[in-house]
């Protein structure tokens, strides 16, 4: 017989994540811009943005606005969701390659999932989530 002791203690993990070094990115979102960090020395573009360039070890970063034009590289539809996303209807996660060569993983806002195909043109835009914060997602551009 499986006898189970149900924990009387509970641990809630809800993180506070420092983003100060890349705060320009979030300021950008508030202004409708999607930014990447770029190494002044070697010109490497980082997305997700990062404050240090491992390429040249000694490095300075500048911020560049990304073009919003992308090609869909691959996608999935999340049918079985994690607990903390249960309130959302099935969502499409895609990886899009921007003109700059940088790839971005995010949701694709699209009504008819049947219209999604690899190679389709998309645009990236800033969105405000119901949890009251800004992020970004793709929408079809064809």
């Amino acid at each position, binding site marked *: 017989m499986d006898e189970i002791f149900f*924990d009387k203690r509970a641990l809630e993990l809800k993180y506070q994540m420092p983003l100060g070094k890349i705060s320009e990115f979030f300021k950008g979102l508030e202004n409708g811009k999607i930014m990447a960090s770029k190494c002044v020395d070697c010109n490497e573009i980082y997305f997700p943005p990062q404050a240090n360039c491992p390429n040249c070890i000694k490095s300075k970063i500048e911020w560049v606005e990304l073009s919003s034009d992308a090609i869909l590289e691959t*996608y*999935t539809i*999340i049918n*079985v969701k994690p*607990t903390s996303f249960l309130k959302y209807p099935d*969502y499409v996660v895609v990886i899009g390659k921007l003109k700059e060569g940088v790839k971005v993983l995010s949701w694709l806002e699209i009504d008819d999932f049947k219209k999604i195909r690899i190679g389709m043109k998309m645009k990236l835009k800033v969105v405000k989530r119901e949890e009251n914060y800004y992020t970004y997602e793709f929408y079809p551009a064809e």
Partner: protein
Amino acid sequence: MNRAAIVGIGHSKFGKRMDVSINELAWEAVKPALDDSGLSQNDIEFHAVGNLGFWSEELLPAVTVGEYCGFNSGSMKTEAACASGSAALKVAYDSIISGNTKIAMAIGVEKMYNSPNPTVIELIGRAGNYFWEFENFGLTFPGYYALYATRYLNEYNASEYDLCLASIKAHHYGSLNPNAQFQKEISYEDCINSKYIAWPLKLYDSSPITDGAAAVILASDKVAKKITDTPIYIDAQGYATGSANLSRREDFTGLNASKRAAEMAYKRAGIDDPKKSFDLFEVHDCFTIAEVMAYEDLGLAKKGKGVQLLREGQTYHDGKFPTNSDGGLKAKGHPIGATGISMAVEIAKQLRNEAEKGRQVKVSKGRALSHNVGGTGHYAYVTIFSRSD
């Protein structure tokens, strides 16, 4: 350099194991490994425990398992996501070939059912880059692999039907392995009609949530020969790390970390042609698409041709490249931290010609390989084993 050999193996029954605690589960692998080798706990100079945890209550499993099983020598827990077991194997292996230690144990154990399923799904989904992938976009573990599947199927003209071939094979061997979580054959219809979990991947494309443990005892060459007549040597390991963010991967039809780990292992073991060198491949089929990519990443098939091996049945135990003769992660089960050690146990068993009927491979080259991926190509460990000395 000293050599190291497996001199004892143990494996618990995999499945939903609400009849045992994590320590009791580990004991189910540790005890038979001790029995198999004839050694006692005092002989074990170091034990490494592969475990991811979070879903089970013990924060320091290497210690609680150690106490329960009667070890008090040095220890650590290793984490390399789903390759945590192979990382534990590295620790034990390096301990021996360095000359520091004569006998060491690598234990893999995971107790996933100690948390409810939604918590487990959430936890595995967090195993990438937390903020950029999970926090914002709620990726799940099947979701990550689905991104690979979509691209692969599209690029190489393969179908969901093809992927089901991997699942059917897995369940076939699961049905012959008494330790497997799933012990029933499945049909094409079972697979193709199963519900989507992360399109295009379905329930039957996916390995299950599993509790399980496995253990191997390693000894230096000299000691090994005194302990057993059938030492199974570790010839080499290769390893690599992939980017945390999936968006930073080069392409989505293979795992770059797997390729690099395999190259390193082949180079270190002096393998020129992997196609001609092994009696058995234990590959990381957490999803059906992962098995297909593994064929290619390991050099058994050209890019886009992995699926052809399935269509031709070449990876059954009597085919050209016998693969996952134990049911693989898909049917044997995938207790995260235990999987890498379970692969080593299966290989030792096969190279000793001790596998159950219907799944024993023909041992002619005396060599086998395990391919253990952590996360979605976040880690890769490839280990090469041989029977000869």
